[in-house]
């Protein structure tokens, strides 16, 4: 088995609040390889940022990782101590935020902030750090860098600040760059500049990028692989073409129907019914069930397991298990043994020769039927 650069396995993160435990991330898994761009998309509150902050271990005071592991080059960093994590942040993995002012200190010149970041993680001298910060500013397309290092954040435009923040994130050449809504606050033409910069840097430096956004346009433009989140879980994952042209989860389908069609702009939008999920009041089954017009009884009762629906394309929707019934029939006709079929599809025949779905195969125990 080849080792991934980063492997998030069954991550659970929750927050303690006055109203109880908020389970913001409920079993998220994904792998990231060097040089790839992974997109995380989902509605507000779906757990995208919390997933990113969990990797960096920069959660708010009241939050903690309550389960799962995060492996960086095979080592579980959730077990690392403060010192190890502080060198992980910056050297291995950096993050940039939507609002650059949250990471830039308004009272220091951008040069001194850049140099500090460099000195913290390397054994460069002050003069070398100064050289390097000018080099970094040049790299991210800041003109007249030698002059700029004397300026303060408020003297720069929004796009320029975002470039400076990217330069800071790159100071120690991390393997992974996490970008949390890096262009949401920017205008379209400036957004295009920053996206192009990120693509350039990614090619030049070969780093992996995790792109967190709710903007389907940014996702389609930038990402090799995409995970779609809903209610703190991954509901679908695949390539950009899978997600946009063969969506296999009802939430993903709904999301795509609710934005204007690129080829047929005037076509009426089809909104997703209902309201975004309330994490304090999660259903026992599929998180999307209260808004899904295809919901069945089982959707309310049990969480659907992730199933392959194509090559490198997976979705967690009971409809896919239902579709597997057909496959079970075909396999039976081909004379495949019943245990094999059950293993592959989750379906078996009961005493009366009726197909029943074996919930144990999705790790939840019991038998169910698929009623509307």
């Amino acid at each position, binding site marked *: 088995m080849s080792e991934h650069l980063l492997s998030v396995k069954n991550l659970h993160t929750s927050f303690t609040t006055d109203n109880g435990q908020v389970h913001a991330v409920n079993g998220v898994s994904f792998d990231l390889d060097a040089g790839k761009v992974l997109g995380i998309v989902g509605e507000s509150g779906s757990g995208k940022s919390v997933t990113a902050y969990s990797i960096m271990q920069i959660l708010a005071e009241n939050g903690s990782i309550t389960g799962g592991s995060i492996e960086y080059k095979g080592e579980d960093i959730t077990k690392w101590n403060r010192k190890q994590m502080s060198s992980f942040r910056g050297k291995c993995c950096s993050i940039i935020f939507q609002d650059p002012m949250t990471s830039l200190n308004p009272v220091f010149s951008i040069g001194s902030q850049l140099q500090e970041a460099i000195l913290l993680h390397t054994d460069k001298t002050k003069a070398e750090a100064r050289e390097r910060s000018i080099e970094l500013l040049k790299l991210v397309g800041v003109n007249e860098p030698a002059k700029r290092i004397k300026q303060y954040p408020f003297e720069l435009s929004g796009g320029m600040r975002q470039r400076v923040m990217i330069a800071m994130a790159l100071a120690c050449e991390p393997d992974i760059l996490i970008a949390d809504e890096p262009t949401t606050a920017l*205008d379209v*033409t400036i*957004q295009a500049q920053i996206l192009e910069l990120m693509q350039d840097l990614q090619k030049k430096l070969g780093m992996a990028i995790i792109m967190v956004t709710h903007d389907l346009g940014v996702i389609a433009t930038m990402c090799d692989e995409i995970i779609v989140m809903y209610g703190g879980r991954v509901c679908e994952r695949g390539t950009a073409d899978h997600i946009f042209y063969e969506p296999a989860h009802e939430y993903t389908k709904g*999301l795509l129907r609710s934005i204007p069609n690129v080829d047929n*702009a005037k076509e009426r939008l089809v909104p997703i019914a209902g309201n975004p999920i309330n994490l304090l009041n999660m259903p026992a089954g599929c998180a999307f069930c209260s808004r899904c017009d295809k919901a069945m009884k089982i959707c309310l009762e049990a969480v659907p397991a992730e199933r392959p629906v194509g090559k490198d394309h997976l979705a967690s929707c009971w409809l896919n298990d239902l579709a597997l019934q057909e496959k079970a029939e075909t396999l039976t006709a081909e004379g495949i043994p019943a245990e094999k079929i059950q293993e592959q599809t989750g379906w078996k025949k009961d005493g009366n020769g009726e197909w029943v779905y074996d919930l144990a195969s999705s790790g939840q125990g019991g038998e169910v039927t698929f009623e509307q």
Partner: protein
Amino acid sequence: MSSEYLIEVEHLKQYFPIRTGFVKTTPLKAVDDISFAIKPGETLGLVGESGCGKTTVGRTLLQLYRPTGGRVKYDGEVIFDAGDVPETDASGEVKLGSDGKPLLSKRLSVNMLPYRKKMQMVFQDPYSSLNPRMTVEDIIGEPLDVHKLYANKAERREKILNLMELVGLNAEHATRYAHEFSGGQRQRIGIARALAVDPRFIVCDEPVSALDVSIQAQVVNMFEDLQQKLGVAYLFIAHDLLVVNHISDRIAVMYLGKMMEMADSDELMNNPIHPYTQSLLSAVPLPDPKSARERQRIVLEGDVPSPLNMPSGCPFRTRCRYATEQCGAQRPALTDRGNGHMVACWNK
């Protein structure tokens, strides 16, 4: 007097005095000579980068700001004239004075009260534009009270419930407070309040920008349904070009307080002429991987100049790859390139 257009905006100007020195002030030309017209029941989309003056156009035309110059007509009637508008004769020719210079209109103000009811505004931020300590009933009822649009309490309540139904709110929401609602629901409350006075025209300033994608679609559909039912016209301001294209009959593009291009929305999206519009459209990240892969992005260099330090001539020339000497010397006028496709550019 009646007109083909419901709203006509002519040479609108809004300059804000900005203190730039100890005693010195410099005019910030937030809106500089903007003209457009909107037919009854029509939607004109207004796009451009943040700070280019979209909100100021909306607020000035409703006279929430005192205009620096220009004229606005409602259904053919001049509702204000801040002067400086070239007078034209019946055939559209500019009238000249005895000195050979164009005759300019005189300042004129009209009692706005009857027009206030006809022209309303819906704001971007559903969180801050509603008073959280008021019930939904009182928020929607406020304009009814101001304009005394009911005979008794029962009629007031009935009107409020009708408005709530129109925007898809339940009657039982009436006694709840604004802060108890989600963003999409708050936007519905804001729209019900705007509709209370039965307007013919609504300025919608980024009404869906703060909402989640799935909720955006609900609100966009509601705007469309209301237009179908009530025949209201919209000035729809937004920065999401795909949403603007979806909802608008025509689109106007602004840059640094000036109009760069205006055309039917399909025409503008498929055949943009102005270099700024071209780069703006090519920069929109398309939610479609194939188109995204095939497309050539025109990435503009640099930032938008400060409106206090406006380039001479064409405001776009500092970032334009077609700029010539003429562009710095003289500002290009907005001219019709056929079928009402208006463009302000010397070289395109």
